């Protein structure tokens, strides 16, 4: 293993020396953010290589308008809110799901299946599943919507905030942050969409895309591969996570997403409105759409004052550049979602990125 690390480091050093300009690599996956910090990889990289975290944490990229819709639903006494744990502490203007839990019925679930089960068990209430996440969690939401339809379960619906990663990468390169030289592509999203999905980033933008897993060695080797491509001035698509990711991805999962959802324009924190970037339920499943059922607004919300999560998510600033970082905003008292989520960039910086 040591010789592989040494070889990768040589490759990285070589690229930094010969290119004569800083290299910026972005990862777009919360699990990568944490894995990179925890392993201390950053400190081993030459100064010329900058690693940025992009819009890869599902909770973080969720627009404030969606959070407001969730909190509005939580005020109703005819609803049970079923949510993945990470959403529960995301603050809105008047508190979070956690702080309004005294009045609201909020249940943390590990799976969309648990949310549907809550609906079966609580016939007198409507269970709203807070369906956030990228292509990895979208099929899980689609499965339960189909199940609910088949069983004729009426007291269940989902608030879809599902997002697609490719439109976000395109939006970044297309304007928000075109200084990104290459992408470390997300391992788990790639399991679903397939490594080949990133080919359009390579062909349309000439940026190297390397799909990697989460072990430190894999991440270093992926960075070395990116550096190799940059010094050869030839962008390619490469996956080094072949133990899990295939070219074409999980076709059954893609099929079920396509059956239930269609892509619509949607709002992202920091990135604003992105064309065809959000998954909404198709006409035949619209009755399970919580936005429609409760007449909720899907317009963008107002960001929390002073929080710079939007810029953090686009890789425009690093968390310490936010005046609130580690002063008023800490994981114990988070102000923005990037500090709430365990996969958020601000939380990762707070936990691993500081020396006391």
């Amino acid at each position, binding site marked *: 293993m040591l010789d592989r690390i040494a070889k990768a480091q040589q490759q990285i050093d070589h690229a930094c020396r010969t290119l004569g300009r800083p290299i910026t690599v972005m990862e777009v996956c*919360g*699990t990568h953010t944490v894995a990179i910090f*925890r392993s201390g990889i950053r400190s081993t990289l030459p100064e010329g290589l900058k690693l940025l975290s992009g819009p890869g*944490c*599902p*909770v973080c990229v969720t627009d404030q308008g969606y959070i407001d819709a969730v909190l509005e639903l939580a005020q109703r006494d005819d609803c049970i809110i079923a949510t*993945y744990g*990470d959403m529960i502490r995301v603050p809105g203007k008047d508190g979070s799901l956690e702080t309004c839990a005294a009045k609201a019925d909020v249940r943390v679930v*590990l*799976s*969309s*299946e*648990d949310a549907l089960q809550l609906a079966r068990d609580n016939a007198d209430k409507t269970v709203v599943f807070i369906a*956030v*996440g990228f292509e*990895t*969690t979208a*099929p*899980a939401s689609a*499965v339960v919507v189909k199940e609910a339809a088949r069983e004729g379960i009426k007291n269940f619906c989902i608030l879809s905030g599902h997002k697609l990663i490719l439109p976000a990468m395109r939006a970044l390169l297309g304007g928000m942050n075109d200084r990104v030289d290459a992408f470390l592509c997300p391992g*788990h999203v790639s*399991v*679903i969409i397939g490594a080949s999905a990133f080919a359009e980033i390579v062909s349309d933008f000439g940026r190297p895309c390397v799909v990697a*897993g*989460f*072990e430190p060695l894999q991440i270093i080797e992926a960075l070395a591969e990116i550096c190799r491509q940059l010094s050869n001035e030839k962008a390619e698509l490469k996956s080094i996570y072949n*133990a*899990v*990711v*295939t070219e074409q991805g*999980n076709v*059954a*999962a893609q099929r*079920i997403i396509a059956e239930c959802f269609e892509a619509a324009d949607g709002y992202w924190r920091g990135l604003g409105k992105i064309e065809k970037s959000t998954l909404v339920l198709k006409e035949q499943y619209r009755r399970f759409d919580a936005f429609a059922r409760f007449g909720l607004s899907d317009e963008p919300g107002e960001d929390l004052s002073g929080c710079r999560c939007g810029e953090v998510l686009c890789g425009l600033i690093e968390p310490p550049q936010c005046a609130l970082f580690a002063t008023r905003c800490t994981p114990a008292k988070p102000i923005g979602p990037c500090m709430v*989520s365990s*996969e958020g960039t601000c939380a990762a910086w707070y936990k691993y990125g500081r020396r006391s």
Partner: protein
Amino acid sequence: MCLAIPARIVELENDRAMVDAMGNRFKAKTTLLPGAKLGDVVLVHAGFAIARVDEEEARKTWELFAEIEDFEKTQNRISG
């Protein structure tokens, strides 16, 4: 948001499975992985098996998880 973890299918009835990861057992559905069989090691994400994983990869991930757990424990002891 949701950790993806490799786990072995130890019980399977239609698409309902019981899986085992490092001795921890939990429920998972195989709806998204038609053809998953008893004994397969699969990557479980938010309660669903999303990919088949080879044994070697699974072992590496389990070791990494165990290491992280130990590491976090010692870190907490040092800082707390």
